[in-house]
């Protein structure tokens, strides 16, 4: 069961939750996250301009757009990773469960326990075994009894569709797996701490097509339990995998801005914005 | 924690300074004269005369001799190991060159005193003294009683000790010359030597100079190996390279035991000069290295 006292208090998608609070935010009951006028800066350079959008709960939202348009930067603001880079700042507000993640009283470490991230290049900890990797989030940020940990490791590996392949070698180093397996290991590690939202930054770009397919299938299963936001430069992947798509583009000031967002079907077949249409048709990017 | 590191560095310098008793010698005289004595009269009066010039001269000259030999040899060895030698030979030879650096300096000193010094004296020194030495006084020797220690031999010992450093640093610099430059020349039909001369050396120049400066800095700080071969306690600048001399480091090592109150101050003074030299050299080296970083990346 999730250790809720270590997380930002997030209530998601239960239709019976207090609608008064939700109504005052103007959010629908199935919104996991609201972005309001979010901007991300590297020093004085504005990498992401004024983004306002809603992330729907227990679904997959894709950020697409040409390279350099700030999608990854924006993603990293969602779990307060952007600010770990020297000189990087964020403006605006990101609301999860009624709390602004960027409120001064909020501890970024706790934010990251509730919002997990899978990176482009699989990065299992080399000094740890497979089992240790999966449990690392638990062990390093809270205490669990040994029995609990073993159960959670197995459960997470099953949810990440990796259990069958590694159940006999849980003590082997995490880096001994293939690229696709390593990425699933990282996913297992991320979901082991039971975040509400999982962010994925081009999770398949370093993998071969077969491994990519496996991960895409996995995302389809995961979305019943987690809200997923995925950045991808592969349009077809976005079309296959996501429920909602947000299209970003690079402006004249080299900063990124949100062009259009909507249900994936609509974006890909009948976008409202001409730029979106051009991008989908491959006329640029 | 960084504060600790800072403090240590600064305290080092500061403390030495406060220990220098300038009441007897003024800085300029210290740096420009010789002599090393302190006498305390029964009445408690101290007459002291301390001059660092001979040691400064000794340190610089031995290190220069050392570098004059170590630089070409070290750089040439680096070129050979990186550009010419077949892989396996290179690995073995690299290891061997590095081993010298692993030998504790006192052991090198022992060997130099016992084996190298007499042999150098009877061969090279004798040869140069009897030819050029007839004409150039500072290359002469007293042929009836050739010295047991000499500045020249100390320089050679330094050369041996510092060559691995020059070689290691130069290897790094040469290796960082982009492959594309080499290929460009080879594609035009240049020989190995031409490639080295026309592309590799010029590109690596700043880095190599920095390596040499760093090695020079190492050489001036070397104490034991030098002091065993250069002779102890010469308080004046020797008339010839083939006579005993003294160095800043060596003088500290020899006279620390009998140092009186002023003497300790004089030692601190020597230390300051030594430290100052080291600082200047390492700054120079770093400047050169940053220049090479700016030019070398294509």
């Amino acid at each position, binding site marked *: 069961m999730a250790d809720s006292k270590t997380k930002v208090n997030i209530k998601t998608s239960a239709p019976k939750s207090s609608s008064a609070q939700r109504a005052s935010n103007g959010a629908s009951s199935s919104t996991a996250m609201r972005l309001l006028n979010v901007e991300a800066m590297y020093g004085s350079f504005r990498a992401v301009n004024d983004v306002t959008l809603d992330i729907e709960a227990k679904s997959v939202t894709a950020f697409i757009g040409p390279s350099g348009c700030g999608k990854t930067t924006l993603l990293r603001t969602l779990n307060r990773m952007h600010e770990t880079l020297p000189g990087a700042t964020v403006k605006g507000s990101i609301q999860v469960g009624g709390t602004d993640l960027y409120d001064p009283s909020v501890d970024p470490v706790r934010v990251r326990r509730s919002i997990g991230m899978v990176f482009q290049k699989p990065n299992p900890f080399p000094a740890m075994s497979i089992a240790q990797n999966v449990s690392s989030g638990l062990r390093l940020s809270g205490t669990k009894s040994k029995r609990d940990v073993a159960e959670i490791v197995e459960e997470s590996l099953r949810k990440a569709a990796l259990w069958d392949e590694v159940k006999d070698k849980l003590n082997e180093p995490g880096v001994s797996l293939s690229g696709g397996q390593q990425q699933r290991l990282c996913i297992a590690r991320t979901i082991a701490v039971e975040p509400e939202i999982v962010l994925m930054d081009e999770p398949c770009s370093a993998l071969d097509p077969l491994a990519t397919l496996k991960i895409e299938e996995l995302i389809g299963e995961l979305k019943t339990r987690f809200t997923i936001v995925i950045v991808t430069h592969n349009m077809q992947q976005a079309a296959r995998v996501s429920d909602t798509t947000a299209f970003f583009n690079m402006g004249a000031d080299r900063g990124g801005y949100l062009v259009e967002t909507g249900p994936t079907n609509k974006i890909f077949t009948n976008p409202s914005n001409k730029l979106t249409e051009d991008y989908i048709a491959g006329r640029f990017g | 924690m960084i504060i600790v590191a800072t403090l240590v560095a600064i305290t080092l310098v500061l403390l030495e300074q406060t220990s220098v008793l300038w009441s007897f010698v003024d800085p300029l005289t210290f740096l420009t004269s010789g002599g090393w004595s302190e006498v305390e009269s029964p009445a408690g009066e101290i007459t002291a005369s301390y001059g660092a010039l001979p040691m400064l001269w000794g340190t610089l000259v031995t290190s220069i001799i050392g570098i004059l030999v170590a630089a070409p040899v070290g750089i040439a060895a680096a070129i050979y190991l990186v550009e010419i030698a077949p892989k396996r030979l290179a690995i073995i030879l690299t290891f061997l060159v590095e081993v010298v650096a692993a030998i504790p300096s006192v052991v090198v000193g022992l060997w130099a005193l016992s084996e190298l010094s007499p042999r150098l004296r009877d061969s090279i020194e004798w040869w140069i003294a009897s030819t050029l030495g007839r004409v150039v006084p500072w290359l002469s020797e007293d042929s009836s009683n050739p010295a047991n220690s000499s500045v020249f031999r100390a320089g050679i010992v330094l050369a041996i000790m510092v060559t691995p450093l020059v070689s290691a640093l130069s290897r790094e610099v040469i290796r960082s010359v982009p492959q594309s430059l080499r290929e460009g020349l080879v594609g035009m039909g240049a020989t190995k030597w031409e490639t080295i001369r026309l592309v590799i050396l010029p590109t690596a120049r700043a880095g190599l100079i920095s390596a040499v400066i760093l090695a020079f800095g190492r050489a001036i700080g*070397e104490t034991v190996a030098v002091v065993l071969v250069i002779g102890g306690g010469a308080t004046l600048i020797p008339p010839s390279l083939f006579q005993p001399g003294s160095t800043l480091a060596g003088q500290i090592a020899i006279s620390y035991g009998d140092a009186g109150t002023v003497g300790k101050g004089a030692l601190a003074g020597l230390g300051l000069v030594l430290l100052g030299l080291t600082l200047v050299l390492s700054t120079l080296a770093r400047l050169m290295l940053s220049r090479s970083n700016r030019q070398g990346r294509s």
Partner: protein
Amino acid sequence: MRTNRIMLRIIQVATFVAVLPVFLILIAILAKGLGTLDLAFLVNNPLDEQVGIANAIKGSLAMTGIALLISAPIGIAAAIFLNEYASTAVQRIGDTLVDILLGVPSIVAGLFIFLLVVPALGYNGYAGALALSVLMTPVVIRTTQEVLRLVPAGLREASLALGVPMWRTTIFVTCRTALSGILTGLVLALSRGIGETAPLLLTAQGSNDSVIDLGAPLSSMTIVIYNNTISSDPIKFAQAWTCALVLFAIALTLNVLIRFKTINSRVL
């Protein structure tokens, strides 16, 4: 071209010259040192009937060991601070300072402790250890820094993204990954410390006591070699060679250890 061949030949000869001293020194050490080497030499003390260097060996190990105990925590902590927590400006200052410390001649370190500690406490082993740690700490800092830099940023990010606080990330992820490299750095510092003579002369001075008392003058292998070398007694001179052999064997072992570890940790 003939120039080509001549120049290449010259370069080859130069390399040969660079390597030559190794053989000469090695052969000399073996030839002259093996003669007096026996178990008694290693186990006895200078005042025993059969002279030995046991006190010197213990002294070397003790002082270098204590120096490491001082240098390791300070050095590793400083490296962690510089690499993981410091801003770029502070990093640059720190790097410069470490460079300066690395370049301090060993005798100056000895002189520093000599002027600072010896007038009050006399020559003793602790002073010797202090002088050594002045020289060893920058080595630890530099090597630890370099290994920490090799840890991919992605690992730190993964840990932070899991909600692990920064200090825990640094200890349990970054350092754990860099561990073997850090240990190699410690061995490197150790090998520098054990070969030093000048600083110990000025601080521990040396003694013939068979009892190892760190609060009193202490001997080391390097001091023994030095003192025996400058003596006019041929027997002592021979013993200098033997002690040199022992010291060199230890130094070489440490050095080879380092090389093996470096090659292995390249896998990282």
